[in-house]
């Protein structure tokens, strides 16, 4: 297991490094002088030259790359032009909000889609299957921002207890200082009012963000369950008289859960991408909101920082899934140790 995880971690680190280099290259081949973009069209040639010197843009490209990578390794993402603070501290400030939203989304996705997928496969071709099928289709096809707007609209008329912007009622005096996650910190601090309020604020954005994944994972769970159900060992288990309920959960779901988990990992980047729109609509104070603002301002350092942090998110999510897969499937642990 340790061996298999080390191997996965190494390859994911390679992905991160590759991502960093790729972003650097893209940032350099983009037409236009970064210093000029940063200072705007009104700056004088002298100012631009000075900034170029300061940003190290006159060094050879590989020296720049080296400085940039060394900086990254030390957690230095440069300065934001928008806030003129280090990008790292801006991101760290916005990170917990995004983390809380994404975590809530993933929990929603898993807890809704896998049971529904199992249900649909169990009652295959019945009305239950058809209804879940329509639900999953709607989840997949409705654009995140359209759903977000519809939810806001519904909230403003019908579900007025769910606020449509922000993360916490400003009248509640609370600083999430321990983990940065409101739901956890409020419990630690013994503030049920904050906990409930945070939950109210989290609900709509999390639904808007989760919908697409719910549909997709539900569909994949269903088809994986049906595929596993046709395998010989399931027929054998039935013939030996193992109850259908046990076959469904211990025998089929365990094998079938590999596919939806893998997809969750692969689609994680898309999830973060969609968070950009959802955070934007709900004015959620996360890195995606920060990202959109900085992108609109052509704040290159901040944009690079946001993309890299998203990459780190992706890597962490996939490592977590690898651990889960290792627990579920002994072949990952044992084969991983034997050969490639």
């Amino acid at each position, binding site marked *: 297991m340790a061996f298999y995880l080390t191997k996965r971690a190494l390859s994911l680190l390679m992905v991160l490094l590759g991502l960093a280099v790729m972003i650097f290259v893209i940032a350099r081949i983009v037409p236009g002088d970064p210093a000029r*973009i940063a200072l705007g069209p009104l700056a004088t040639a002298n100012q631009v030259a000075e900034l170029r010197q300061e940003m190290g843009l006159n060094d050879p490209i590989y020296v720049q790359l080296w400085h940039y990578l060394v900086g990254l390794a030390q957690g230095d993402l440069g300065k934001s032009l928008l806030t003129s603070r280090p990008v790292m501290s801006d991101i760290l400030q916005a990170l917990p909000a995004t983390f809380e939203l994404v975590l809530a989304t993933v929990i929603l996705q898993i807890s809704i889609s896998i049971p529904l997928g199992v249900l649909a496969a169990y009652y295959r071709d019945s009305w239950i299957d058809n209804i879940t099928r329509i639900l999953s289709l709607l989840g997949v096809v409705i654009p995140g*921002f359209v759903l977000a707007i519809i939810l806001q609209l519904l909230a403003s008329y019908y579900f007025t207890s769910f606020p449509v912007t922000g993360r916490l009622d400003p009248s509640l005096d609370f600083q999430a200082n321990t983990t940065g996650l409101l739901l956890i910190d409020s419990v630690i601090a013994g503030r049920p009012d904050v906990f409930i309020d945070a939950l109210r604020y989290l609900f709509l954005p999390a639904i808007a963000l989760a919908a697409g994944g719910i549909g997709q994972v539900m569909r994949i769970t269903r088809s994986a369950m049906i595929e596993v159900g046709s395998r010989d060992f399931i027929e054998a288990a039935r013939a030996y008289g193992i109850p259908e309920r046990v076959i469904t959960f211990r025998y089929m779901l365990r094998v079938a859960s590999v596919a939806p988990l893998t997809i969750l990992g692969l689609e994680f980047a898309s999830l973060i991408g969609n968070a950009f729109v959802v955070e934007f609509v709900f004015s959620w104070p996360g890195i995606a909101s920060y990202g959109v603002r900085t992108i609109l301002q052509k704040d290159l350092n901040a944009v690079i920082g946001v993309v890299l942090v998203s990459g780190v998110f992706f890597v962490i999510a996939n490592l977590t899934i690898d651990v889960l897969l290792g627990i579920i499937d002994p072949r990952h642990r044992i084969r991983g140790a034997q050969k490639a």
Partner: protein
Amino acid sequence: MSSHTQLDDARQQRTLTSRQMAWYRFTRNPSAIIGSLIVISVFVAAIFAPYLATHPESAGAHVDFINRHSPPSWEFWFGTDNVGRDIFSRSLFGYRISLGLVVGVLGVAVPFGITLGLMAGYFGGRVEFIIMRFTDIMLAVPPLAMALAITAVLSPNLINAMIAITLLWWTWHTRLIYRIVKAQMSEDYVEAAKVAGASHFHIMFRELLPNCVSAISVKVSLDAGFVILFGAALSFLGLGVQPPTPDLGTMVSTGSEYLPEFWWEAVMPGMAILYAILGFNLLGDGLRDMMDVEL
């Protein structure tokens, strides 16, 4: 002919031709039927927008202050926007942008992705390592963030949005084709072609590619919906098509400023987007069931 041979020929199954089977599955598949009807209607709407639109003048920078913010009615099926333009007519024209984006993006990304996937799966070794590690890296990038960054730096417009989406899209096709080809490589027909002296080009494009076609067609159909979604999201954030060109994402974005009172201004174009995506998805699903492929 020996008696044994006759026996073998008698054993030939009384099968339907593949075309008959496909047609049977199609007629039994509501997803495929509804999906293709929707997709056809979207194409018709886009192509004949000037003739089908109830208020064709709304396509441009037309202003009609008397009718601004009108709710849906017989006159204005989807209502009107903040300057009194008919949202239904603008939605029809909006499909032109959406479909143009689909054709532009998939027309480049799909052949490119397929070629790389074929190469990675067929050659293996170093070629596989480089291509697949590169797609792994691309996979870690949030596509919307990347597209935002690219369009922001290059200045936002339709062409740049198309470039940004294309740059990200090919990886999914590469991965799909790679997986299929990897599985096909253990089939003897690949080795048989090598023994017959076939060229690499022949094996990749004549032997392996036909075995990917059903998966590709399902994927392309599903993709078309997602490209529309993606383009609309870009426009919604102000980084895609710029006004006054009638684009559905931009329309939702502008309309959302008048929520909740004039809800139709955001919801109706949103529904138009949904309709198109739904069509491509149903079609893709239907094709998947018909051709029995896993993506």
